[in-house]
Every structure is written in C-alpha cells, then in structure tokens.
C-alpha cells in the first residue's frame, strides 16, 4: 500500500505563487445560496460572505497529502474590509509551521498555512490561518 510522503519541517516557508482572483458576483451568489446565507448584500452578490476567501485555492509546490486523511482543525480570517463583487485580489499562501503531536489514534501532523490577500495597490484586504491535521 502506498503511503503519502510525510510532511516535514523543511516545508516551512514554502509558498504558492501570487495568484490574482476576481471576485465574481455569480460566485458570491452561488456561495451564499449553498450556505443559505440570508444576508441581503450577499444574496444580491454585492458583498462576499466573510468566509468567501476559502474559494481562493492555491497550491504550494512540494506540499502533497491525501485529502481523505486531512481534518480541518481550525480556521481564522482577519479583514480590513469585506470583499465586493469586482474586487481583484492578489493572494498567496505559505507553510507557516509543521509539527507532530501524539494523538489518541497515533501520531498526528499539524500543518499551519498562512494566507494573505491584497488589493491591486498592495494594501492588505484579508489574511487567513488554516490549521490542518493529518492522521
């Protein structure tokens, strides 16, 4: 049976390319519909729901793991302002930390990812921190 490569601390500091995401009205509406979010500005597609940055998906070279073995442990977002339809955000995600802990079911690997989003002038719009747990 193949085992995916173990995540090791040498991954710390690796990062994605900077990716430009356009916040589309239709994508906001689709997200709000899936969540059954009743916020009027989100239903109209004018303002993105707070967790919308989760749609900005990027890959970090060298970071691979089996999705089915990953638990999402924690998530944080900080905002300078909400995202709006028509925004163009430059995003990047990097490996902030990797560490092992013993769990009830054996060793677990914690992977901390830090994400940043800026507007076209380079001003911060939001940041995110993901804690993923690999069993």
């Amino acid at each position, binding site marked *: 049976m193949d085992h995916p490569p173990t995540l090791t601390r040498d991954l710390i500091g690796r990062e994605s390319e900077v990716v430009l995401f356009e916040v589309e009205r239709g994508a906001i509406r689709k997200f709000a519909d899936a969540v059954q979010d009743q916020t009027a500005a989100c239903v109209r597609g004018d303002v993105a729901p*707070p967790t919308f940055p989760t749609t900005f998906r990027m890959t970090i070279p060298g970071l691979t793991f089996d999705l089915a073995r990953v638990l999402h442990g924690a998530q944080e977002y900080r905002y300078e302002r909400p995202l709006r339809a028509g925004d163009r955000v430059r995003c990047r995600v990097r490996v902030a930390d990797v560490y092992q802990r013993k769990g009830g079911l054996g060793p677990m690997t914690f992977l901390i990812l830090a994400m940043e989003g800026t507007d076209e002038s380079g001003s911060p719009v939001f940041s995110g921190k993901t804690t993923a747990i690999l069993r």
Partner: protein
Amino acid sequence: MIDLEKASVLPHLRKPPITKLQLVKYAGASGDYNLIHTDDETARTVGLDGVIAHGMLSMAFLGEYLCWLAGPESVRRLSVRFNEMVRPGDTLTCRGRVKERTAGNDGSRLQLEVWTENQRAERVTVGEAEVVIT
C-alpha cells in the same frame, strides 16, 4: 441589525437542517471537493459512517451570524475551532455573547464569543470574532 451596545447574550440564529444536497452545493461553491463530504463510500474508507459536513460550512454559518448581528461591513475577525463532526440531518444554531467592548476612533469594537451548536446542544464549532459598530 441588533442593538449590540446593550446586548451581552446575543440572539441566536437557527439554520435549516443540513442536507446532502447542501454539501454538494457547498463543495461546488467553495471548491472543496474532498469526497468525504459528498461520497458515502469514500467517507467509509476513512472510518466514518457516511459523509460529514465541511467544517467551513459551519464557519460560514457563523460568518452569516456576524453579518446578521452587525452588518457585512463590520466584520473584522472570525476565528474558529472545529470540535465535532456535523452530519446531514443535523440542525445548527449560531449563538454568541459579547466578551469585551472597547471604544475607538471609528466607533466601538466588540469582541464576541461565538459558536454553533447542534440539536443535542453540543458545541460543534467554537470561536471568537471582532466586529466594529459605528
């Protein structure tokens, strides 16, 4: 919007029961195609009884809760831990309380304790948030 200046225990927001269709829609809308959320067979191969909801869906409920309480322009931070699994058929309710209120140049900043609980009153997703009130 709620009068947060006076509130300590915040009003609650009850969401409709989670359905498998909602998980498929959320997978598409969010781009999280991990099959443990949409395919029972895959979920069983990792020891689950069947599909579980995306943790981010319950976080999205809390995001809506903050918008409902304070307005979508007012949300400055949302930080959560995913403590318990959520399954189709579960009904989540968002709850919260004001922890701290500080006055700033642009109005008040409120530190909130927020969580979603299921129909068994288990806190499945717990966290903290900051909103500004002008």
